[in-house]
């Protein structure tokens, strides 16, 4: 066996042991007593409410973070403003912070005695309700779109935007017709990552939700509550639903990561667009048009 094969089997074995085996076991245990109990476990009202709530939160958090992410990325790359370095650093905070800290921070802010705790007295319920859970989800899934779009914006530079401007395009037209098409793959990829994180979030949401069964319970929280209640079939079945959503997300991610064939055609290596950031991440940077390699002489 050559070293290449050893490497390949090593990598596969590692993945199998650490990822496929445990996830496979969840599937196995779910359908151990047949399909029917599993189906019943995920179609009961409590489980359905949890799924519904999870999707609603994602449906608010993902568009919010997409819009914010694109605007912030443009501000960070194309504009100079005081505090830019600070903003750039703070964007990464949700990645560095444990979600439990995020949950507790929101709890302190909106809880009884918190700075904004008084809102509850005016009938605006944040904690233990949808708004708090959505805020927590937005917080933890905030960096993904920004981090995907920033390197692509840097890569494409300002030439195309300036050319559009000299051709008479107003700033918003330039954004819509030039900038957005150039970053669309990065945005798509960021949306996929944001969605995955929003749907799977446990720690932060767990704290601000209060975990009221059938009211403020998302799917990951439902899994936990079923598990603690010794309803293993219910817990595993909900896990399978989460795993299927994750699978769909990964497939969507593949769609947003153009393969080598698509690099060769229309949007191809065409710097900027497509998977620049993605390819760089996977160490497969290739296929640029000649012009992207040229170092600019004068600013």
């Amino acid at each position, binding site marked *: 066996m050559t070293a290449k094969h050893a490497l390949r089997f090593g990598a596969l074995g590692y993945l199998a042991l650490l990822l496929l085996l445990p996830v496979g076991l969840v599937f196995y245990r779910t359908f151990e007593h047949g399909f029917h109990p599993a189906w019943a476990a995920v179609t009961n009202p409590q489980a359905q409410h949890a799924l519904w709530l999870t999707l609603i939160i994602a449906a608010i958090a993902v568009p919010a973070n997409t819009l914010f992410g694109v605007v912030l990325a443009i501000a960070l790359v194309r504009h100079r403003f005081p505090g830019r370095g600070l903003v750039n650093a703070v964007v990464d905070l949700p990645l560095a912070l444990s979600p439990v800290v995020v949950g507790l921070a929101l709890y302190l802010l909106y809880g009884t005695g918190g700075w904004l705790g008084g809102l509850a007295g005016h009938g605006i319920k944040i904690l233990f309700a949808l708004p708090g859970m959505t805020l927590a989800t937005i917080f933890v899934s905030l960096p993904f779109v920004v981090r995907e779009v920033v390197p692509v914006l840097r890569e494409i530079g300002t*030439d*195309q935007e*300036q*050319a*559009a*401007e*000299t*051709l*008479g*395009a*107003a700033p918003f*037209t330039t954004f819509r*017709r*030039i900038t957005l*098409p*150039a970053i669309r793959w990065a945005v798509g990829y960021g949306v996929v990552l944001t969605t995955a994180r929003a749907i799977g979030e446990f720690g932060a949401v767990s704290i601000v939700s209060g975990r009221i069964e059938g009211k403020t319970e998302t799917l990951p929280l439902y899994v936990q509550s079923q598990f603690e209640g010794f309803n293993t079939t219910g817990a595993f079945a909900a896990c399978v639903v989460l795993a299927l959503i994750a699978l769909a997300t990964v497939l969507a991610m593949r769609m947003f990561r153009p393969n080598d064939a698509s690099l060769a055609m*229309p*949007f*191809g*290596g*065409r*710097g*900027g*667009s497509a998977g620049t950031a993605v390819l760089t991440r996977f160490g497969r940077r290739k296929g640029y*048009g*000649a*012009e992207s390699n*040229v170092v*600019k*002489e*004068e*600013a």
Partner: protein
Amino acid sequence: MGITVVEVTKKFGDFVALDDVSVAIPEGSLTALLGPSGSGKSTLLRVIAGLEEPDGGQVLLGDDDVTHQPARARGVGMVFQHYAAFKHMTVWENVAFGLKVRKRPKPEIANRVHELLELVQLEGLAKRYPAQLSGGQRQRMALARALAVDPEVLLLDEPFGALDARVRKELRAWLRRLHDEVHVTTIIVTHDQEEAMEVAGQIVVINQGRVEQVGTPRELYDSPANEFVMSFVGPVNKIGDTFVRPRDISLSLEPDGESTEAMVERVVHLGFEVRAELVRDDGQHLLAQLTQEEAQALELERGLIVYVKPSRQTVFTR
């Protein structure tokens, strides 16, 4: 439309890119902004385009003061060194862009784009994406795109800088012919003196953010205003305080009263032209330019002793 730049100053932090620059570009002319890297020539072009706002001074297009107008309102066509092609659009869509944002009727757009693609000889490639074009084709597309909106002035920022030498030469000649056809006031930024002389009717030499001299190629070559222009617009020998063009060094095999002895170090044959690198007794290196016939008559070769005499020299008073 003529362009007038009045006392324009532009700083980037502590760096002075343009220092009190005034230039008048006559209507319908083809003018080159010539200078070394970092001289401020591109900045001046971008100030005229409206892509940079000057810290002081005025920019006039015709009689209109456009100093504070955004680029999109100035009616300029701009071509960038790295093409700035819209990568997600076809050649046709690239050229049509300016007309589409101006909301021109569709048949008019179709006609105009067709006409321009013909002008830049890209008719067959309308459906291609920029990535499927060569550098020269991309730059012609960029030129068609800039011309589509009938600009009052055409601004070219090192347009051929990223192309190989042969394509560059072709495109220069082509640009010259195009300008004869279209007559739009054109400014081309370049650091290549040969390119400037070949293409432009008027050259503005810029160095360290200042205008050193304005004139026709001939005027710059024959009567440079100062040392910088003298050495920038062509090769030059500096002997003490005097400057001699390689063409103005005459060689002979016999000494006369004024000539000095030198040895041939290297002979370079460039077709019709021959360059000889010489070294004098006192260690002074000289470059001489001869025709092939002259070189043959002297039987010029490495190690030959010749007698040199400047037939024409320039001294700048400081």
